[in-house]
């Protein structure tokens, strides 16, 4: 790579993870959560999203392009590490490792998820409660969703922690420790919301 690019790529990678991808993730999980209020409420919310003005533009510039850039550069970063948690079993070193493992898992999960929902929709399928219910009717798919959602919320929450360090927001040891607790809280809250929704689609909850 040519000079003077790595810093910018790394910073762009960090920024994209939060804005817009993190923002989109929170919006997506929120819309999903309408499922807990019944099929009708979910279909209405999903309908609202898919009928937003400039929806193709929004999808491309706030979802697809940022995710592809983040994923491609993220893979490059992930495979640059030589993990040493066996010798250095410190909490942050494990988080470093999990961040890279979860990133790869999320990429696989999201590719599959987009194939089954967004690409299916482009080919004529209708995105609604029934579509998701049919997908997670298969126990293997439900397990894949549970793993995928948890990996995604972890990657986002832990990514917020390193975002704060990368941009020089949390400099002191104390602020970084508090940020760890905050990111743990965000992880638990988003995982709860995400799993509650998917279990509702599967007919296990609600």
């Amino acid at each position, binding site marked *: 790579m040519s000079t003077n690019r790595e*810093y910018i*790529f790394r910073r762009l990678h960090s920024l994209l993870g939060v804005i817009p991808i993190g923002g989109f993730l929170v919006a997506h999980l929120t819309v999903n959560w309408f499922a807990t209020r019944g099929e009708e409420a979910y279909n209405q919310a999903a309908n609202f999203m898919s009928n937003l003005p400039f929806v193709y533009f929004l999808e491309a510039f706030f979802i697809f392009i940022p995710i592809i850039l983040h994923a491609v550069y993220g893979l490059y970063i992930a495979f*640059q590490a030589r993990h040493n948690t066996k010798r250095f079993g410190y909490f942050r070193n494990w*988080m470093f490792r999990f961040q890279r493992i979860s990133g790869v898992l999320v990429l696989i999960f999201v590719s599959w998820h987009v194939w089954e929902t967004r690409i299916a929709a482009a080919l004529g399928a209708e995105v609604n409660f029934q579509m998701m219910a049919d997908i997670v009717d298969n126990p293997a798919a439900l397990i894949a969703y549970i793993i995928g959602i948890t990996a995604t919320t972890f990657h986002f929450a832990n990514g917020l922690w390193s975002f704060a360090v990368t941009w020089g927001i949390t400099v002191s040891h104390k602020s970084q420790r508090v940020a760890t607790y905050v990111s743990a809280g965000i992880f638990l809250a988003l995982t709860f919301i995400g799993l509650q929704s998917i279990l509702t689609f599967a007919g296990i909850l609600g």
Partner: protein
Amino acid sequence: MSVETEQKTIELIILRQEDPDSKPYEQNFSIPYRPNMNVISALMEIRRNPVTKEGEDTTPVAWDASCLEEVCGACSMVINGKPRQSCTALVDKLEQPIRLEPMNTFPVMRDLTIDRSRMFESLKRVKAWVPIDGTYDLGPGPRMPEAKRQWAYELSKCMSCGVCLQACPNVNDKSQFIGPAALSQVRLFNAHPTGAMHKAERLTTIMDGDGGLAQCGNSQNCVESCPKDIPLTTSIAALNRATTLQAFKNFFGSDNTA
């Protein structure tokens, strides 16, 4: 009544290597126990009598050492899995067999001897000094507040031992990451009132090219491993903040030289 108590020994397993290109292999040693030994004196004992535990003659183990009081960093090696200085690794406090390995994130020259040149190249790259040479006397520089001097002293304890690079998962053969030690020196010399006159240059250096500040992945092994308790991750986060501002100045501003 027993005539003789069994003689106490110190057991060592040392990862050896003939030269930079040959394959490493393990060798076992068993040396007579003396109280208050450190790893260096154990290695000296092997040098005195280079015989393996199995009784075979071998070459003496090569290692580096200089100050013997944990301020030079030369004797750093991996002891029982952790990189540290062998002069302050006391045998009585170590679990046996004591496993010695070279810090293999650096080129291994022979046995436990490594080439730490990259640490010194990094210091040159970031200009880790206060440039005052010139053709005439510049007079006294600005004064440094005492509180700040005491704070900066902690950062100045770095002895370029290389332990933080050995512990870092992002310093390896697949990356060119400069590592925590030299980055913390950027913070140190940017904090110095005269050194700060080259602040922008140092910050731009660690943003330029491959292997700069941005390659830190926040595993924070460095700060856990540093024998001098230097707040390396705080330095890196502070530099993240400083380079964020510098990047904006470089791109949008025109007062970006200092």
